[in-house]
């Protein structure tokens, strides 16, 4: 069922265009990675501050609250490119083990948000008063870094499964 849906989806005009145009896929992939680079520092800053490994001159709430909206903007940009990329070759990616791993890791990011948002990220001001910091907060920050790191590596690995990423766009670029 999921497979037939993905095949239908990848053949809609938009996704067929991304797949068949020589430029769309490489440009979107570059934008995907560019936005990851530009906005990844915000996740790093948030989590490093909570862990107390950086930005210690500023309070936790100050960093967490100020970066909340910019991080969401970044996520939307990265995810938009990512969805265009993945759905354009949905049938092929359906069988790619690293796509599956990446999806599971992204689902874990959602679980992470459900578990920690109300108790850590929404209570940043309260965390400033607590010394030492609760294990829960440090666990949230550490797991966040670990999850995003794994997602970046799984994402790179997707291109190593035959037939994906660069191979058939080569002709289009030259």
């Amino acid at each position, binding site marked *: 069922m999921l497979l037939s849906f993905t095949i239908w989806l990848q053949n809609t005009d938009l996704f067929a265009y991304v797949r068949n145009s020589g430029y769309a896929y490489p440009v979107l992939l570059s934008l995907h990675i*560019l936005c990851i680079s530009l*906005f990844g520092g915000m996740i790093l800053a948030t989590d*490093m501050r909570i862990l107390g490994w950086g*930005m210690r001159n500023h309070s936790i709430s100050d960093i967490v609250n100020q970066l909340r909206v910019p991080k969401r903007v970044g996520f939307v940009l990265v995810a938009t490119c990512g969805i265009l990329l993945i759905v354009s070759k949905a049938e092929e990616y359906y069988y790619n083990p690293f796509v599956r791993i990446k999806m599971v890791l992204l689902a874990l990011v959602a679980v992470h948000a459900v578990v920690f948002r109300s108790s850590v990220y929404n209570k940043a001001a309260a965390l400033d008063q607590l010394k030492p910091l609760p294990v829960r907060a440090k666990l949230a920050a550490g797991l966040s870094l670990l999850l995003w790191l794994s997602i970046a590596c799984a994402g790179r690995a997707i291109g190593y499964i035959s037939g994906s990423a660069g191979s058939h766009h080569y002709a289009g*670029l030259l």
Partner: protein
Amino acid sequence: MFIENPLNSSELTFPVLECFHIVGFIVAIGSVALVDFRLLGLCLRHQTPGQLTNDTNLWTIIGLTVSVFAGLLLFSTDPDKYYLNSPFLVKIGCLALAIVFNYTIHRKVIFSRASPASSRAVACVSLGLWVLVVFGGMLVSFTAI
């Protein structure tokens, strides 16, 4: 004389090095971008650009070191493929410019309480150079085959 690069003895080496390369540049570019976004007034406005530069300086250096070192090893697996590839040369040129710019004019403007206009200009140049580095790098992977 022909010496086999030991990095080519395993198929896993290249992808693993690439992960180090990618995570390294995410940390490096991400930390510089944080300062640039601040210069543009887009985030962390409670902090000064100078404070953020001091806060993220070490991350930038660590990210750059990991990324460049992994990049050199990646290059060494097949130098012929890369040094004849024009996107690669553009990328390396922009990278050199971006690094020099970051530690000279960028710094100077951040710590000299320059006018908002020059802060914005410097942020745009810095971001522009890093964008070219990333795009150049992606283009390398699509053309150096």
